[in-house]
């Protein structure tokens, strides 16, 4: 599985959404991606990429696209 697929899967599985919903998806844009969904998503991403994100980055993680950029800090290229 590519990193992009892993990344997308984390969204699909934790937020219970379809693949076509992920592009341009923003935090709080759908009921599933609220603060509870957000923490589940972060946990899933941390597990799949074996990283530990900083508090600031969790807060800055405001969209599907923004997350890709933030993960570069943890040497995860998507």
């Amino acid at each position: 599985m590519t990193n992009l697929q892993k990344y997308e899967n984390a969204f699909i599985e934790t937020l219970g959404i379809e693949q076509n919903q992920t592009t341009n998806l923003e935090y709080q844009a759908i009921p599933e991606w609220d603060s509870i969904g957000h923490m589940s998503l972060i946990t899933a991403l941390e597990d799949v990429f074996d990283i530990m994100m900083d508090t600031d980055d969790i807060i800055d993680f405001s969209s599907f696209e923004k997350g890709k950029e933030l993960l570069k800090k943890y040497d995860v290229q998507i």
Partner: protein
Amino acid sequence: MFNEILQLSPFSLSKSEKELLLTRRLSELTNHHIKNCPEYASILSGIGFDIAECGSYYDLPFLPVSLFKELDLKSITQEEIFKVMTSSGTTGQAVSKIYLDKTTANNQQKALAKIVSEFTGSSRMPMLIIDSPSVIKNRTMFSARGAGILGFSIFGADKAYALNDDMEIDLPAIEAFFEKHSGKRILLFGFTFMVWSHFYKELLKIKHRFDLHNGILIHGGGWKKLVGESVSKSEFKSKLTDICGLNDIHDYYGMVEQTGCIYMECEHGHLHASIFSDVITRRHIDFSPCEFGEPGIVQVVSVLPESYPGHSLLTEDEGVILGEDDCPCGRKGKYFQINGRLKMAEIRGCSDTYAVNR
């Protein structure tokens, strides 16, 4: 303007700088709510309030916190409501309803993270929540307890709950959690009453001793129910240290009506106001501000509330401002203590809810 404040370190401003900042932001919020909340506008015009006469945020009006139980106060449209938070009123008591839009909900999380990081550091820790997972079952409407747990979850890397759905201690889960994270700094979070009754007292009963000398406990939600058990603050701490070595313990003061702006207890046992909020103590007779050292009714102001007119509230608590900018811990801003509920006020601390329901 909130984003400007967010760039600052939360305990970095001295009195005059902070007063300027708060006066600017809280006046802006007052005008915002006059424009967007008809009930708020009519209350303010009813008392003949004129913002032009306000030289400082001390002069801005404050709403009694109980008003959020009686009225649906919001400065957003029905469609913009993202979350509704409720206070922890118990059966027979009315609950406050706080309406959040995305912006205010986000700002609450950001402010909380900034404040708490000053005490925990920014790296996340394994987190043991001294509560039951059922607290956050309904995700669109949650109680003060749920909101607290959720807000603090951002500091947890791997999370576990210490209690099961029946509020009984889940020893196997706790043991497994401590074993998995042995040697690491662990964050424990819970409401004061829960920590005492469902964690400390249960640990007393078992033979096995956990070693949490490397842990940090953050707890809040009120002491009222523990006063009944005559547990003082210092006893609470020393007993926890005795039983599991835990000695980094911080109480916090906060309320659902101003979620995000919590007042953390420092190493010297003082509650601290960050740049996101402030406390003013007022005299019962004429609501004039008290001197430092003089007990009074606690007013809280917060720069966060945009979706509801809760930026300046008169609480039902009595407190004392101990000083400003000169706490030995080095944090700037006011530091204070809460003496307890005013007489006649309802029981409504987060951890008290559960107590009354028993």
